[in-house]
């Protein structure tokens, strides 16, 4: 009985947390893009698969001439604009895999620094890096990329996106690292000018202009670069997110209803088996009301214990398997904050207790109508 009640609250809790985490992860991804338009060299689309880089945390880099930054500034409708510099590390001390290094322009950046400010507060200095939450590096550590030593100045909060495995630094720092990678012949693009190369330009469209107009304008005039709408990039994610989230919700509802039925039947059987006991209580002076109250409080006690167990177990499972869930769904997954979790826990407990109450109420009603005279007669 307790188990069924536990199962009920577990389902509601786990289901809600999973779909909340997905939505959370999506919001985080949206934030992470941080711009309306991203302009990358044309080959980034085909060769390096820019989309996978952003969405799945694949490592990659590509460059275009810095002159495009100035050209893009002149495009009508461009509001904020900032260049980014990408590089992929070879295996380094902190990390068992290659990590994405992302450089931003401290003066113009509007997409990354807000995140870093949350974690650090101070501006990031030359040869300082900020590391993503999943990396095994901590503030004060010294890391080495292509022989260049950098210091970890801050660590970001968990975002549930590819940011969690990336390293951030100012453009100057990354340019220095690119130079080093060229010197060591560890960069695919051997003939670039590190001082003048950029990887990506983030653009926020000025007020009064449509994103589509600006994207088209850029793509028509420049064959070598490609402007991408950020929302296009995540629309695929958004769709599968809706699908999964819908599935989780439906599953939760179905399981909940099933468990409710089982609970009703279980309570019904339990009270049915104890008919004689209840008849004895009637004889000993329990009124119909009192008998119903006894059945009710007993059932509520059971379902309350079940609910708490279920929520605790659900929390345990989700926290310990969030990684597995994330990778099996292939979608950004970010657990809600403590407050939200408590709220969800409360709501799912309430829902299960309510379900328990409903089930118990049915049995209590039946028991209070018990034919005492008939049942007390029987020997067994």
């Amino acid at each position, binding site marked *: 009985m307790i188990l069924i009640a536990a199962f009920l609250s577990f389902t509601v809790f786990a289901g809600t947390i999973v779909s909340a985490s997905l939505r959370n992860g999506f919001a985080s991804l949206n934030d992470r893009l941080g711009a309306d338009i991203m302009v990358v060299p044309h080959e980034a689309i085909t060769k390096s698969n820019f989309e996978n880089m952003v969405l799945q945390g694949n490592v990659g880099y590509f460059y275009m001439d810095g002159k495009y930054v100035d050209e893009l500034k002149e495009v009508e409708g461009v509001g904020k604009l900032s260049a980014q510099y990408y590089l992929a590390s070879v295996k380094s001390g902190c990390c068992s895999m290659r990590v994405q290094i992302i450089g931003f322009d401290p003066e113009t950046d509007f997409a990354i620094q807000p995140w870093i400010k949350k974690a650090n507060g101070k501006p990031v200095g030359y040869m300082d890096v900020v590391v993503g939450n999943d990396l095994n590096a901590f503030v004060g550590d010294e890391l080495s990329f292509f022989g260049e030593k950098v210091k970890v100045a801050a660590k970001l909060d968990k975002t549930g996106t590819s940011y969690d495995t990336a390293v951030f630094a100012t453009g100057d720092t990354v340019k220095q690292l690119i130079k080093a990678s060229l010197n060591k012949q560890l960069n695919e693009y051997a003939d670039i000018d590190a001082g003048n190369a950029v990887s990506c330009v983030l653009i926020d469209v000025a007020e009064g202009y449509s994103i589509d107009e600006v994207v088209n304008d850029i793509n028509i005039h420049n064959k070598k670069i490609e402007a991408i709408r950020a929302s296009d990039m995540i629309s695929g994610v958004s769709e599968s997110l809706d699908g999964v989230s819908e599935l989780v919700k439906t599953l939760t509802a179905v399981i909940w209803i099933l468990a409710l039925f089982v609970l009703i039947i279980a309570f019904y059987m339990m009270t049915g088996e104890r008919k004689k*006991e209840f008849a004895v209580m009637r004889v*000993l002076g329990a009124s119909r009301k009192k008998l119903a109250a006894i059945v009710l409080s007993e059932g509520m006690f059971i379902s309350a214990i079940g609910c708490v167990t279920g929520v605790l177990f659900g929390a345990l499972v989700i926290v310990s398997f969030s990684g597995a869930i994330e990778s099996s769904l292939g979608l950004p997954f970010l657990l809600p904050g403590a407050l939200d979790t408590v709220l969800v826990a409360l709501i799912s407990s309430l829902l299960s207790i309510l379900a328990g109450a409903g089930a118990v109420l049915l049995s209590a009603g039946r028991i209070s109508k018990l034919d005492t005279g008939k049942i007390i*007669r029987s020997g067994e």
Partner: protein
Amino acid sequence: MEISAKDIKKEFIREAAGTNVYTAVNTCSMELKPGSLTVLKGRSGGGKTTLMNMLAGILKPTEGQILYDGRDIYSMNDDELSEFRNKKTGYVPQGKSAVASLTVRENILLPCMLFGENAEDKADDLIKRFDIENIKNAYPEELSGGELRRMSIARALIREPEILFADEPTGDLDDENTELVFKLLKEQAKMGKTVFVVTHEDTAEEYADKVYLMRGGKLEG
């Protein structure tokens, strides 16, 4: 307290047979006096338990009245009648009647617990008197029929009721214990209580002040 049954009758609608009305107790009258032990005997299925339940305020007669010192108990509402049963009557049901999730001691205290009252001392007293001290913390499933029976008699006495109903209280007991139970019931009657016992035991007549016989729903005696 004096109980008088006035022209009571009980009919049941037999569910299996649809509207077939079955008369379990034919119209009859009887009086139970304080300080006396009344015995009701009869064949199985004769309607003894049905009659006793009507007397005890558990089963409303189809016709007639049950008066306790002149008051019709079935004119009370369920709350009143339930409390009345709890305070004024003790009832030893036929067969097993223990609440499985409670220990022997808790079962004995159950009538008090239903009203949020306590009577630990009285319970311990009864436990001693019925010689079930060694099992007072055991659960019913671990007990023998005789032990359960003694527990259920003790439970009927915990409220020190003025009236005592017992339905075959010696059903599972050996001769020695049977005698002990009847002595005890007689003792209660001597203390001024109204005692009503349904039994098969012939020895019961030795203790009885009045004996009734029930045959096919008809009361004789």
